[in-house]
């Protein structure tokens, strides 16, 4: 398509291209992604518009869907079971944990479905296919911003009623943004495998949805890591999302401790899995589009 997008052959005009069985190298791939970057925006907007297209209470669902499970969850875990929450009101504690967990959860599920959902376009037009899973994160981001709005709203409500302010203000927010990025990158790292597999096996999405339920309980979302016996914490921290969620809560609410070593190891794991994911995706996308 675009001349610049195609691998330039060694000889000839500057806009010469050549189509061969092998894919272009990594540098060329990054350059190509950059050239097609504007498409990312279109795909992202398209995804968001599709979320509640055709519903008459669009905006209402946008807020209601995250809010109701949180209300019920904080009633059950906070009020009935009295799960400790590091001295922060349980509702706020739960909301913070859920916001970053759901960012991961939703991203992974949307990324997994992304190739399948864009099959019509993929079969007819060329563009760097990596844009499809990457842009699928947009929907999860919308949820995340809604969670953030709920968190700030709740903090203000508590402040007005009790005079206590729980949210950390200052450079800690930068760490929170970093943790959110980690959640997205973790989802993409796994999603790059699952979105290719999903085009062939529809079981992938259901299997994933099923395991995400367990995964959440292995992650300190509804409970603080301080409730886990210190000699067992490393087990919890084998799960990269545990350090992401803890870091997020630490930076936002100022509770717990920054899990430095687990966070570094999580970064390492995500980098390795992600690099493998990019490789797997690039090696198999062409065949999977052919099979669609």
């Amino acid at each position, binding site marked *: 398509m675009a001349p610049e997008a195609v691998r330039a052959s060694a000889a000839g005009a500057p806009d010469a291209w*050549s189509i061969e069985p092998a894919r272009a190298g990594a540098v060329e791939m990054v350059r190509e992604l950059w050239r097609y970057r504007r498409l990312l925006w279109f795909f992202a907007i398209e995804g968001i518009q599709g979320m509640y297209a055709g519903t008459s209470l669009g905006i209402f669902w946008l807020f209601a869907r995250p809010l109701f499970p949180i209300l019920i969850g904080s009633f059950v875990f906070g009020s009935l079971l009295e799960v400790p929450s590091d001295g922060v009101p349980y509702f706020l504690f739960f909301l913070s944990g859920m916001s970053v967990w759901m960012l991961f959860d939703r991203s992974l599920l949307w990324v997994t479905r992304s190739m399948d959902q864009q099959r019509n376009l993929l079969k007819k037009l060329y563009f760097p296919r990596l844009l499809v899973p990457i842009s699928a994160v947009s929907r999860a981001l919308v949820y995340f911003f809604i969670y953030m709005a709920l968190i700030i709203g709740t903090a203000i409500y508590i402040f007005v009623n009790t005079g206590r302010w729980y949210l950390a203000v200052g450079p800690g927010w930068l760490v929170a943004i970093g943790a959110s990025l980690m959640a997205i990158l973790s989802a993409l790292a796994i999603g790059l495998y699952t979105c290719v597999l999903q085009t062939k*096996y529809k079981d992938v999405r259901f299997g994933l949805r099923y395991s995400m339920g367990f995964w959440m309980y292995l992650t300190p979302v509804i409970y603080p890591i301080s409730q886990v016996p210190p000699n067992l914490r490393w087990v919890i921290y084998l799960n990269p999302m545990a350090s992401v969620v803890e870091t997020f809560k630490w930076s936002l609410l100022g509770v717990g401790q920054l899990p430095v070593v687990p966070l570094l190891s999580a970064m390492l794991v995500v980098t390795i899995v992600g690099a493998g994911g990019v490789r797997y995706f690039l090696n198999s996308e062409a065949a999977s589009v052919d099979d669609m």
Partner: protein
Amino acid sequence: MSLTIENLGKRYYLERSSEDGGGIRATLRAFRDRLLRRAAPAEDAREFWALRNLTLSVDPGTILGIIGPNGAGKTTLLKILARVTLPTEGRASGSGRVVSLLELGAGFDADLAARDNVIMNAAMNGISRSEALDRLPGILEFAEIERFSDAPLKHYSSGMYLRLAFSVAINMDPRILLADEILAVGDLAFQERCLQKVEESGRNGLTVLFVSHDMEAIMRVCTKVLWLDKGQVQKIGDPEEVVGEYQESVWSELDPARSERGRQSSRFAAIRGVKLLNADGSEIGAAPLEQDVFVAIGFEAFKTVSVKGAIDLNAHRQLVFRSQDEDFRELPHPGLYELRVRIPAHLLSDITYQVSASLTTLREGQGRHYRLNAYDALSFLAYRQNQGVEATKRRPAKTGLLAPRFDWDVKEVTPVGA
């Protein structure tokens, strides 16, 4: 050279059924084999080459028509050049932007207005937003949709869609334009302007690859024609010559390779081909909705027999209807014949149809019927002619498999007891 293709080949694997180990298990097994570095089983008889050893070069300014029967590799070739699919072997090289117009509406979002769609298409061709906005007036003007530029595309008629798609493609400054069939539809006036534009750009070095079943359009437009068959070049050269030879072969060739798709000959008769004709009896590639068209089953009778024809019209993998002759028709003597069935105007919808034909023969004195089948013997597109913007403005975007015109009436009803 604007486009050079060397030994290009594309292999597909036919879908395995789950019985012989398809699905997740086969994948896991293949994965295990790969881990253990075992050689892949050597069978794979189910592979097939949609295109193989294709070598050709095209000069700038050529309008190359690509013809051939279904499954000849025409679309595969365009898809490789559009980079939608990767070749299995060989290479294609050239210079300049390649723009594809492979399917109506591909790359357009029905919920977005024309303006946003132009920007999105430009992005797909690596053109910036500001440059796209610069080109927007020209695009809308050529497509004659200035007045509808803010309406979402779902309210457009197929004619408007086509005009927009073509106008966008040609305004992306392509050096190579890939078009699959769609240039053959639309009203004649717009077709004429498209061709003018294509010729004009051809003088500036634009190369067009144009796939169509519409031989009339191919001969009118193309400067050179490539005839593909079973993934290989059958002939390339002067349009009239190649098209003439191709039509002859379709008409006369008793294709043994197609035997698995239905028995096309017996000792009594053989189906020679299925064509779409207009009222004058000339072959056409696309059916105008406003006119009667005819499906003709050409056959040769080897003996004096009676025949009965039937056609199945399919669209979107569904049987739209079957039309069958009422009774057997006696042939006076052996020879070449054509059974024709009229498809009335205002019945079809503007979609692509596939036709399967069958011919049942009955020999005097023998009780047995022989049935010959030609599956998917013909595929054609039905289109709305003379589609003015005014007339189509309120046309609903939804299309059924048929769009018959029925009689409507309004009557005043006297209430009971009044």
